[in-house]
């Protein structure tokens, strides 16, 4: 028997839960295997947020007062660490979008995308797989961050269930920005540009939020922008769910309903960027 005989395959699967999801998982598995095959990359993606925690906890700690909290300066430093950790969580999951941008731009520049596109697979699978794998990777990142946080004195004060809700919200946000990142990755001309483009929008977005400084300490004209920034509401909900200090909030609808506003923002962002990205992917020829 020759192994390269042709003819129709004997065994085709039946769809169980829709081919888009099935194919998405196959691609996600590939992306996660890639992560494991390049441990250096994984290592450095973990080192960066850990350095952030140490830097903020020991260098800036206490320099930024949280209104309404802490009397003595030792208390203030501790309060800032409690305040800080959810901010770093939020910032870290937001920056995960850059990985989606770079990863997808690299995929598009390689020959393998041609094979994907010549297969009878779901056209959204490459994007579903990419965003899903990038969000899954954040589980590990959040675990390492949490342990570092606990070591420098951060505490979960609101029980396990609330904490799990906080992590779930963070991961949903990571998944959301992965779609934005994926869309940018499809829009850039080459992988070199992807690195810059993938990060450019994230800096203003995270720094115009309450991740590191309270909104009430910002100039008046900036406050509404920061208040309606989904990163602010993500971080605020996370603080509430972990039982960490939130500081005094100015009154905005988004801040008063932080978790709800975050969920709505995520749904809207996915609703906009997922179809945009899928359409871009369909039209893109490999570059």
């Amino acid at each position, binding site marked *: 028997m020759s192994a390269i005989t*042709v003819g129709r395959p004997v065994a085709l699967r039946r769809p169980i839960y829709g081919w888009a999801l099935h194919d998405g998982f196959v691609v996600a598995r590939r992306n996660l295997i890639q992560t494991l095959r390049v441990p250096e990359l994984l290592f450095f993606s973990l080192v960066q947020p850990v350095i952030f925690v140490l830097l903020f906890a020991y260098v800036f700690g206490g320099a930024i007062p949280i209104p309404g909290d802490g009397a003595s300066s030792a208390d203030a430093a501790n309060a800032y660490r409690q305040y800080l950790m959810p901010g770093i969580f939020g910032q870290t999951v937001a920056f995960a979008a850059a990985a989606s941008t770079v990863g997808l731009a690299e995929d598009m520049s390689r020959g393998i995308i041609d094979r994907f596109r010549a297969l009878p697979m779901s056209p959204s699978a490459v994007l579903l797989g990419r965003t899903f794998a990038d969000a899954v990777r954040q589980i590990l990142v959040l675990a390492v961050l949490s342990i570092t946080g606990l070591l420098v004195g951060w505490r979960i004060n609101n029980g396990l269930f609330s904490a799990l809700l906080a992590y779930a919200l963070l991961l949903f946000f990571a998944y959301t920005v992965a779609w934005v990142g994926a869309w940018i990755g499809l829009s850039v001309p080459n992988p070199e540009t992807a690195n810059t483009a993938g990060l450019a929008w994230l800096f203003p977005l995270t720094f115009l939020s309450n991740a590191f400084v309270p909104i009430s300490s910002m100039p008046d004209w900036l406050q509404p922008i920061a208040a309606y920034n989904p990163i602010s509401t993500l971080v605020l909900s996370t603080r509430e769910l972990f039982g960490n200090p939130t500081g005094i909030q100015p009154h905005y609808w988004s801040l008063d309903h932080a978790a709800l506003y975050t969920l709505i923002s995520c749904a809207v962002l996915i609703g906009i960027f997922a179809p945009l990205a899928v359409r871009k992917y369909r039209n893109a020829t490999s570059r």
Partner: protein
Amino acid sequence: MSDKPAVYAEGITRIFGDVKALDGMDLVVQRGQVVGLLGPNGAGKTTMVRILSTLLKPTGGHAEVAGFDVVKQANQVRRMIGLTGQYAAVDEYLTGRENLRMFGDLFHLTPKYVKARSEELLTSFDLDDAADRSVRTYSGGMRRRLDLAASLIARPEILFLDEPTTGLDPRSRLGMWQVINDLVADGTTVLLTTQYLEEADQLAQDIVVIDHGHVIAHGTAEQLKDQIGGDRIEVTVHDAATAERAARAMESVISGHPLIEGNKISAPVSGGSMVLVGAIRALDLEQIEITDIMLRRPTLDDVFMSLTGHLAEDETQRPEPTRRRGVRRR
């Protein structure tokens, strides 16, 4: 569906900006046939293969693969075809086995089938030992073999191979030829592209010669060689005046219009090495002294020169047309 040709394309055009990559390309490949698309770099071979394998939409024209429209029924087409592009399309970080599994899964084959088929392919492509190594560690020849194996995972009826041996060392090239010939023996319909007449001759029964995005000739290797006059005889004599005489002297031996460039005569011949003897006799009879004489197999350059007719119009510019096209020669 089985009565439809494997590939049917009519008047395909494809424009990139102001480049007309394909300009009214017609192509028919019958089931079980092996067709070689022969053309120099930039002729439009890759563009044609990408259109037929649903990766690119044509600007104009109509194409069917296995009876399905490549634009409107792209997914049905994808079920029927295997594609091995000009550059290996496998994942660098995955192992050979993981790659095959991924493509099999994406083809929606059962895990059991994928497993058995992968083993089969890894063995017959001599990749057993490397199966669990990351593709990053593979040589160029191994990548190409894995790439071809990946296109065969679902036993496609129609296989597209875009320059399957370009960039391979001679040994890997022979190995690849062997694999392709085995596939063909098993009844796969194959459309392959190449820049080399020799390769088209080795692999394909039918050859379609394209240039500037359209067909300029087609037929079997034999027919094409006849058309361009088969072998060429090249004679060098003392001076240009003698060359004219020599050309006249050889008239009965050669089978086409002789080209004279200074003291060199080049002419198509048919009849193998015996024509050398005939030519030497004819020249001897006229007492023409021969500086050099040789019989040369036709090259792709000759095919193009005789098919596009550049040569007849401007004999002094003989090597130019091919050089401008950038034909790579081995």
